């Protein structure tokens, strides 16, 4: 029972995990990206279309990455190169994503593909309790585990990662040390957006291998909130994503058991917890435990006279 619930938790949490990791890379470089929801949809559709057309799941994932990389570059262009308002640009990106996927997705509705299959890791998958949820999953989930570590390593053990973090904390300092603020920010936004797209693709290639209009159902917004909950750290993003996956899994379980609580109330739960998490983590930030990049949301203009 617990095993099944944990398994459902991981599967429900993974798309949010990808999206949160992508958003963390954005925000670590100082750019707020409220386009996550739209990017996920673009990734979901591109991933599905790619797999449907080529028959390859791997190509589908690459399509998803590339499509949301491109969509993210719109946000990067506006916020980094043109120093536009990050909030407005991000919201526009979400609306753009919702609209364009509805338009191009029309022909894809009702089509089916063969989605990602579980691949058991010999030995580990036999472990009690955690074997099935963590070591008998599909390849994208294993990739997400790897990504959590890679992103942590990137930020804290590589020079590029140091550059991204510095550009997000104090762009002027990075600039005077010879780092190109716009290059770092641009690629943080686009590559981060690409990862968000893979999160979307997980929905259309693994969770339910089909395209449904607006199939992200607000998961992108949850990811935006989780970035704050996670304190901009990738291991904590994993914790947060699975917390939400757990709530989703539980409410599905409740529904299946046929409780008398209205299904609408149960479906509301993950979003309700989003609000709760935001309240709690915002309070924590105000108490000074903040990991928030200091340059977050601020455009950088070298010749701006202060």
């Amino acid at each position: 029972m617990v095993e099944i619930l944990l398994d459902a938790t991981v599967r429900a949490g993974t798309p949010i995990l990808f999206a949160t990791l992508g958003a963390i890379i954005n925000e670590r470089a100082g750019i707020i990206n409220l386009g996550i929801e739209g990017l996920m949809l673009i990734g979901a559709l591109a991933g599905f279309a790619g797999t449907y057309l080529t028959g390859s799941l791997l190509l589908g994932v690459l399509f998803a990455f590339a499509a949301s990389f491109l969509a993210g570059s719109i946000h990067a262009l506006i916020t980094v190169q043109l120093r536009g308002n990050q909030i407005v640009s991000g919201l526009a990106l979400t609306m753009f994503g919702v609209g364009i996927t509805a338009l191009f997705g029309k022909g894809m509705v009702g089509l089916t593909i063969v989605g990602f299959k579980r691949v058991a890791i010999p030995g580990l998958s036999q472990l009690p309790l955690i074997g099935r949820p963590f070591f008998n999953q599909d390849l994208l989930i294993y990739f997400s585990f790897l990504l959590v570590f890679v992103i942590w390593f990137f930020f804290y053990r590589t020079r590029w990662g140091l550059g991204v973090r510095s550009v997000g904390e104090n762009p002027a300092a990075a600039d005077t040390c010879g780092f190109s603020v716009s290059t770092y920010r641009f690629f943080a936004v686009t590559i981060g957006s690409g990862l968000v797209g893979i999160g979307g693709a997980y929905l259309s290639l693994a969770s339910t291998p089909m395209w449904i209009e607006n199939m992200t159902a607000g998961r992108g917004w949850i990811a935006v909130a989780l970035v704050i909950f996670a304190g901009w750290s990738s291991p904590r993003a994993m914790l947060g994503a699975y917390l939400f996956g757990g709530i989703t899994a539980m409410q599905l379980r409740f529904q299946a058991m046929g409780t008398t609580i209205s299904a609408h109330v149960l479906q509301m739960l993950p979003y309700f917890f989003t609000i709760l998490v935001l309240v709690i983590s915002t309070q924590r930030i105000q108490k000074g435990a903040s990991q928030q990049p200091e340059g977050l949301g601020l455009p950088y203009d070298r010749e701006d006279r202060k």
Partner: protein
Amino acid sequence: MTDFLKIQNVRKTFPGVVALDDVSFSVAPGEIHTLLGENGAGKSTLMNVLTGLYHPDRGQISVAGEPIHFTSPRDSLACGIGMVHQHFMLVPAHSVFENILLALDNVPNFYSKKKYKEKIQKLIDEFDLDLDLDIPVWKLSIGAQQWIELIKLLMRDCQLLILDEPTAVLTPQEAERLFNVLRKLKEQGKSIIFISHKMREVMEISDRVTILKKGCSIATRTRGDFDESTLASLMIGKDKIPQWQKNLQMSDEIVLDIQNLSVRNDRGLSDLDDFNLQLKKGEILGIAGVAGNGQKALAEVLTGLKNTSQGKIMAGEEDITNSNARYSYIAGIAHIPEDRKTIGIAPDMSVDENLIMKSFKSGSFRNWIFQNKKAIRRNAEEKIEQFAIKSGPDGTPVRYLSGGNIQKVIIARELSEHPAVLVALYPTRGLDIGSAGYVHKVIADGADRGMSTILIAEDLDELLKLSDRIAVMFRGKLIGYVDPRKTTREEIGLMMSGEKGSLPDLP
């Protein structure tokens, strides 16, 4: 000897402002060249041109004889030019190690933490500094942060070091240590551009001095060919320094009594720790201390911008602990904030509007719920005249005024209702001699009228000249009072680093 750096006829304009008009000067290897000039003379702009942050409109820069065109800080760094900015270019959330690593070239993407730590530690030992590489920068004192900036440049092996007012954040003893390091670097053949307002230091360390005025380099003097008064007169020209007389009488009536005050900051550390202070009527109480030892918290608590966690503030008989800013104003406490552009004014609003910001509710500036434009304009004209504010055409946003004039706007507004207490936080920071003199005069005149002033400043000479008493702060505690007529700079310097003074309490 060929000059390491040569600048000829550099000009830089911003929309509507000529920041640099025509500047030429040069620095030789093994030379300490001081740039002297009033604020707004263009020193910072010039340095930003040298570090590649700004592109000059015209003029020539050559390094080691080669003409050079910088397009970004990267180019400037590649030429061996490094700068310690007045506002440090550090990432507070990162460790000392990460901040230094950020500045290094040719670090492989997958670097060995151990190897680079050893390299940096070697340099730290060479200059006999005390720095923990793993500590986050925000936990360090400002003086220590400056050493990090310097190490950043030395690790890069910069040939030309630019230091923008480096001693502003140091105790006299620390400044002396910095000078020793600079002399050592000079012997190694490095060129140094030194920017300072403090004549004493300029005299002590400079090989040559170039004076900037209104965006032009007007004179260069070699050591032995200048003294304090010639430099000062070259710098100010015909501008007059306002004259004022300090009234040395103060009464024994206590207007403000701070008792066992503790304040915590956003990071949960104590900014003020069991702090006591008494302010007498009509006195100018100077507060000495290295920046970051609680001065800002003191000013913010007194003006109601910050709440206390412990202790009491009594204004006469009244307890004003944790009153809000408006209430502080009613209680007669005015405030000249540290950061005049972000806290002191609303930069995009006009001079007229900024001047009534504290009294906009009063009947004289409104007709029912509408502004009384005429009265507001009349008030502005009066203040502009009285405080000699150069304000530009009517309706000019305050942000376009020079630092000195912005400060005058703030002072005019703060003093408009004749406050009983003035809390002035670094009121002359970044001001030219003329404007600073004006600020001094206003404070001294206020004391004559019975206004008490808490003057927080970093320039000891300023404190010694103006104060009736000086209180020294260290790590949020009051170390003691000294009498400015009897004390020495050395004594205050020692107290600033936490040692008790010989005069624990002055009656």
